[in-house]
């Protein structure tokens, strides 16, 4: 860059000094990235290892459960055991350590193993990839709606603070935040399906009507959106309160800042102060929250998908837990951990990028 304007000499010296700063900056950034990467890898290893051993040392492994259910059908214990082992194609008599090294070795080659019970023999990775889009789409869209609505309502509450509308909004969102989302879901099913009869029950069970194939057809999209409607309402209702309260307090503290007073004194139009000054600054910390929430999107979907029989990863996890499908449980847990850790790292970086004050502070350090 400095060579493009050779005719002016004084600025050149300045850019040289900047380059020195740049180098320092890049060095510290690289160090930061290196440390974050190492920490991330360590946590992923820790979670995988812990879950591996916890799952296998606790009572009720899948072979035992299968043997029990086979014995219920009248087989003798030996027959049942032989049958179950053949079905699972796995040697549970092998020492746990040997199972662990095999598992880790496969993992490093990107192989999460095959499902034991829910879809015997099918690679966990394939099942995950098949289910993931549903959850990401449904819970992701709901998260964005909830976030934007929360910011909007939070600003209203902050601007009208201590008025009746603020009282109403804060109390309602505090309550929505405290009511378990399972209860919200069932209340909505009862309200919309039973009491008002505006939504047929078939729209609140499953992610598609029977007979409709996924593809780029209008029929598919309409049907998918119809099944998304009520679960989406539940997600929004149960997370809206948190966003709103956060935005409200963030806005109130921004309103007291000097730059807002100055902007008012300069006679800027109210709308411009609200959007470009207060809104932009007050929503900064919330964007970090949004990035973190993106990682938790699947985690929050378990119970909702169970209630609405929505064919996503959340439902898959509860089914895998019920049937003790270890590779599947392990695969989902690993994927969720990676998502959560990555989104936290993204949130950190995002915050530095959105708020220069933090960048400068960490640069000086």
């Amino acid at each position, binding site marked *: 860059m400095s060579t493009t304007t050779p005719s002016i000499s004084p600025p050149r010296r300045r850019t040289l000094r900047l380059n020195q700063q740049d180098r320092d900056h890049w060095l510290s950034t690289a160090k930061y990235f290196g440390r974050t990467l190492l920490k991330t890898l360590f*946590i992923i290893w*820790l*979670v995988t290892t812990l*879950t591996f051993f*916890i*799952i296998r040392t*606790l*009572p*009720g492994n899948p072979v035992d459960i299968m043997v029990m259910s086979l014995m219920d059908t009248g087989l003798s214990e030996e027959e049942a055991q032989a049958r179950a082992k053949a079905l699972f194609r796995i040697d549970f008599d092998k020492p746990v350590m040997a199972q662990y090294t095999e598992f880790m070795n496969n993992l490093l080659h990107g192989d999460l193993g095959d499902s034991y019970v829910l879809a015997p023999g099918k690679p966990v990775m394939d099942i995950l990839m098949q289910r993931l889009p549903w959850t990401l789409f449904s819970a992701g869209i709901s998260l964005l709606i909830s976030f934007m609505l929360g910011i909007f309502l939070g600003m209203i509450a902050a601007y009208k603070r*201590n008025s009746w509308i603020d*009282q109403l909004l804060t*109390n309602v969102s*505090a*309550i929505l*935040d*405290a*009511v*378990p989302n*399972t*209860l919200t879901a*069932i*209340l909505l*099913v*009862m309200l919309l*399906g*039973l009491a008002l009869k505006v939504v047929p*029950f078939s729209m609140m069970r499953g992610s598609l009507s029977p007979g409709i194939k996924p593809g780029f057809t209008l029929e598919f999209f309409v049907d998918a959106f119809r099944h998304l409607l009520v679960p989406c309402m539940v997600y929004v209702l149960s997370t809206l309160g948190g966003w709103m309260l956060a935005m409200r307090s963030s806005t109130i503290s921004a309103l007291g800042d000097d730059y807002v007073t100055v902007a008012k004194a300069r006679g800027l139009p109210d709308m411009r102060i609200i959007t470009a000054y207060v809104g932009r600054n007050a929503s900064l910390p919330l964007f970090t929250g949004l990035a973190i929430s993106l*990682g*938790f999107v699947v*985690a*929050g979907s*378990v*119970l909702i998908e*169970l209630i609405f029989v929505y064919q996503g990863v959340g439902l898959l*996890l*509860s089914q895998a*837990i*019920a049937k003790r499908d270890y590779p599947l*449980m392990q695969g*989902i*847990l690993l994927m*969720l*951990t990676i*998502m*959560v*850790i990555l989104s*936290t790292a993204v949130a950190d970086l995002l915050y530095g990028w959105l708020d220069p004050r933090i960048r400068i502070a960490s640069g000086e350090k």
Partner: protein
Amino acid sequence: MAAMTALPQRLFKSTWTTLKILARNKAGFLGFVMFVSLLLMSFIGPLIVPPEVQADTTAINGSPTADHPLGTNFQGHDNLVMVVYGGREVLVVAFTAGILTVLIAISFGAFSAYLGGWVDTLLMSITDTWLTLPRAIILYVLATLVELDSINALGIFLALFSWPGLARQIRSQILSLKKREYVEAAVLLDLGTPHIVFREMLPSMMSFIAIALIDAMKVAIYQQVSLVFLGAVPFGSGWSTVFYSAYAKNAQYQADAAWSLIAPMGAIILFQLSLVLFSRSLEEVFNPRLRVGV
């Protein structure tokens, strides 16, 4: 002797003042009254309301009548009796989990902030690691694997999952308290760590801790409902179990059975509501700046 008589009087007076400030905030007072009523119903109620001797098989999935003010469930059990008897379990879990969460968080936060150095680094890395993990999912997976066969076990289990956020908050509070003049004065007077922590620092954090306790109870009830829903906690007669057993019979699709869901769900929601309102008005009691028009 004078001190002996003065103490109850002082206690009475400060309780009275607290109640007066609570009563000033209508919503908060309502929350307080609801909280106390639900406690009384759950712990004293079973002594007054006779247990159901036999299910009323003539009224299955009944609507409210004079005999059954909240209707009956799919087996003809009285919903009101189940709600009265189902409170204790839920509340005990909430109290156990709430108190333990706060205790663990205080120990981690206080030791970390007060001792500093490698203790701080170690305790905070544990806290941060635990914070970054998908705890809800780990909670679900572990709860189905660990045999949670008593309410106390469930309370302890829930507390292990909910302390890290609070520990961080307490650490930063203590760090800022350490710089206050009266604490520095106590340090200079060489009053000893226990005195400084328990007599100087914790009292000024009591409001924060009381509100954190209520929040932790709220979270514990939330998680407990989720776990019952996943079929992870096998025991019980609590509200969440009553609600789940009706749900498992598809009560949410039948207009007749609605009351067997509304009764236990109403109890849970009312209790959560009372906690929310109560904690918001407590903030006002502890923080005079929030009191409007006093």
